[in-house]
């Protein structure tokens, strides 16, 4: 099923979004890397749900929001997006920094969303390890660390194999800059978030890669302990990008979980 693209104005900011599929709405919030669009796992989930995949302000083809200072701002923005786009009470799935935003949204307004899926989400300070400082490392170093094994990633060539264009580099630069605005200090976490998580009783699926070298899997355990209705699924031979590294298994997990709601 082919998606279409739309620009939706929220609070004066033009938000680029991919939209497609059929069924109840599922809002998908991307990580710091980029909104990768209609990738394989989304195609599978869109057979049963209408997927809305907006690009965060300051990223990709969405407008600027240089006034934003934290992921809590991004969370309030996406709650507004739900209203502006007329999504009713959508399921919400967020990956990495998008997962952090999703967790913040759930604590701010649990009634605005249906089921919650957090994937390798930042937002909590690990108790033992550290969240990798992505700004301190080069793209090449990050490329080596982000997945468990590039050879097993079905869409690797398509997503990462092409030499970047000048426009692509500039867009990546802009996205990195916005990520820094949102997450520089405290780095990639909100010390207050954990205090609010018990408010969220929505059924929640947490998905992590066992070998995540960006956000340690212990953060998944912390989210599971703090969220009353949460289940944690850890994928083996998987790094920080479960939806990309194991798209079929990931789509299956998400579909099984969301379809329980019906």
């Amino acid at each position: 099923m082919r998606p279409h693209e739309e620009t939706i104005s929220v609070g004066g900011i033009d938000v680029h979004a991919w939209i497609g599929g059929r069924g109840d709405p599922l809002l998908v919030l991307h990580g710091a890397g980029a909104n990768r669009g209609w990738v394989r796992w989304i195609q599978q989930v869109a057979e049963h749900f209408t997927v809305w995949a907006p690009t965060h302000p300051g990223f990709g083809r969405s407008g600027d929001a240089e006034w934003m200072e934290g992921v809590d701002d991004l969370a309030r923005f996406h709650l507004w997006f739900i209203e502006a786009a007329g999504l009713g009470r959508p399921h919400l799935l967020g990956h990495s920094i998008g997962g952090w935003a999703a967790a913040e949204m759930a604590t701010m307004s649990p009634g605005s969303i249906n089921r919650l899926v957090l994937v390798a989400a930042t937002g909590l300070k690990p108790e033992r390890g550290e969240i990798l400082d992505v700004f301190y490392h080069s793209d090449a170093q990050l490329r080596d660390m982000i997945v468990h094994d590039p050879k097993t990633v079905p869409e690797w060539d398509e997503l990462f194999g092409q030499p970047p264009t000048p426009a692509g580099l500039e867009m990546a630069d802009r996205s990195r800059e916005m990520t820094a605005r949102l997450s520089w200090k405290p780095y990639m976490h909100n010390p207050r978030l954990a205090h609010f998580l018990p408010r969220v009783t929505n059924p929640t699926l947490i998905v992590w890669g066992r070998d995540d070298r960006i956000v340690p899997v212990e953060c998944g355990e912390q989210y599971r302990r703090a969220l009353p209705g949460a289940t944690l699924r850890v994928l083996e031979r998987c790094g920080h990008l479960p939806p990309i590294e194991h798209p079929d298994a990931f789509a299956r997990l998400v579909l099984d979980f969301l379809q329980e709601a019906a």
Partner: protein
Amino acid sequence: MKLYYFSEMPHHEYPDAEGEKYPSLRLGFPNRFFDRAKAAANYQRYLDEYEYADQVGYDGLMINEHHSTPSCVNVGVNMAAALLGRTTKRAKLLILGNILPIEDNPVRMAEQIAMADLISGGRVLSGFVRGVGVEQWWANANPVHNRERFEECHDLILKCWTEPGPFRWEGTHYHFRHVNPWCLPLQQPHPPIWIPGTASPETAVWAGQRGYTYVPFLVPFDIARELFDYYRQGAAEAGREVTPDNLGFLICAVTADTRAKALEAGRHFVWRMGPTLRGPIEWFSPVGMRSRAGKQFALKARPRSLATLSYEELVAERFIIAGTPDEVADGFALVQRELGIGHLLLEAQESRMDHVTTMRSIELMGAKVIPAMARL
């Protein structure tokens, strides 16, 4: 033309082979290689050299500040200015400079600069810098706010010095409910302000708009002229006239009794051109620190990085001037003719250049070069 003496107060007191094991000498080179006893002795030595530079007639003493690096262990530029304010008599104290974007309390900074100005009898030239990226990491200051914080910190410091307190400051990055510093600079309305530049056209325009003294560091002459053009553009916007007193330039320089000795001493400057600047781009220019215009200009400003130039090339292109007093005087005069500047800042000690060599260079500059430059 006025001459300024400058040492980064280096701490090159470890085996080079150890430094080479790390991606950079900055940030990540472990401080177990910091030698406390040698550092204690070096501070005395460096301050002695500054005091001697004052005695022989240098017009100014320049000091700077960096962190988490052996290239510069002057970690508190206002502390050094206060010390020199007490122990020197005549030279201007060029603080170049305070790193504004990483400062969380501009009011305290305004007080400290004022205190140095008072102690020195009004000799402070107050430079403000945006800093290199490494300092953003050191302070954990968000690099995307570098320019905004530079400007707001500057505005608040100026207000501290020029408007009666108490007043309130509710800005974007700084918030103070009660500003009323009981320490104001001796110079009125405030110490002259200096701004260095290496690659940012915006900074040159900004400095020109305000009539501040603008000083490119170690760039080719044609790039310096281009930056001065940006400066003039800013000055013209504000209806300001630009004189040589508005313009300075920084190079490395050493003199000795013979050309051979001076050229040997000059080799110590190579350390600051390459090894101390080595490191990942993410550390030196972190995300969002530079505007796109600044990035493009930076590429142009350093078509070849200083690290790739041989010592002979660095001398040929006058990033380093080393020779007898007559030869360095000729070299400085050439820089003055090329750029039309009123201030020449000399990085005059580096790396492992020893005390005897440094003192002799200071002595010869005072006896033969500074008087010649005063006539230019």
